[in-house]
């Protein structure tokens, strides 16, 4: 079970990196999140 979850985690991460999803995370994180502040 643990090995399967590790495999799944790494597979998800590799897919995400391949899709450049880190750029989506960055785009959200580099601008002030108005919802977090309580304005949006």
């Amino acid at each position, binding site marked *: 079970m643990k090995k399967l979850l590790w495999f799944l985690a790494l597979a998800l991460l590799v897919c995400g990196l391949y*899709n450049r999803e880190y750029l989506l995370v*960055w785009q959200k*994180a580099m601008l002030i999140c108005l919802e*977090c502040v309580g304005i949006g």
Partner: protein
Amino acid sequence: MARRTLIQLLTTLVYNGNLSGFWQGKIYQGATKRACLPGLNCYSCPGALGACPIGSLQSSLAGTILRFPFYVLGLLLIFGLLCGRMICGWFCPFGFFQDLLHKIPSPKIAKNNFTKRLTALKYFIALLFVIVLPIGYYLTIGVGVPTFCKFICPAGTLEAGLPLTLANPALRSGLGGLFVWKVLLLALLVVTAVVIYRPFCRFICPLGAWYSLYNKLAKYGITVDEAKCIHCQACIKTCQMDCTVVGDRECINCGKCRQVCPTQAIHFKK
């Protein structure tokens, strides 16, 4: 200073190392924000050097388009499989904030059957506010809304809302009912955390709910040597979380139980 407190303090400082952001009223925009941090720490905190995993999950899931969040889920799964809820106890700035609040002298409410039942609430909040509602907003209005951040997250109010609106006059002009609601929630949490140990972690936090699923599987964390255990329950009596067994889903691996175990049966996995 206890080792755990020192690590919590260092974690808080490392997560929020962009100190100049606090007086400039601006947030850090560097490349380190491409990675999610393991603990709950708002990415709009002026000091934040990394992204919040819960905020990133909501925006990756249902932002401008609906998609499966491979990257954020992969990171969250790795964090969970490595440390489980040890992250809550050792590497979460908002958990540390609540630990400090609980040190304020006052009458305290200990765990009881009601608080044990209330721990299920965080799973409901995680499902509804982090997954169902953001997708629901996307399907109805065409844009996902990070509903946990918007309507609940007191870490966002404390770390982003208050410092940014204090330092940035442009943001102050946009404040309204939502900000008042979030400040009231934060105030309620602060008062509650003085009386009740870590109420946000125990009853509300979606990140804690996620990590709790991996507590038993995690590579690092606390465990019991069954051969040495005499089942005296001293560990459970001293635990401030809603644990019924050491290392169960509510255990944040703080290690307080290790200090009271008469047979030294409790230890950290190596």
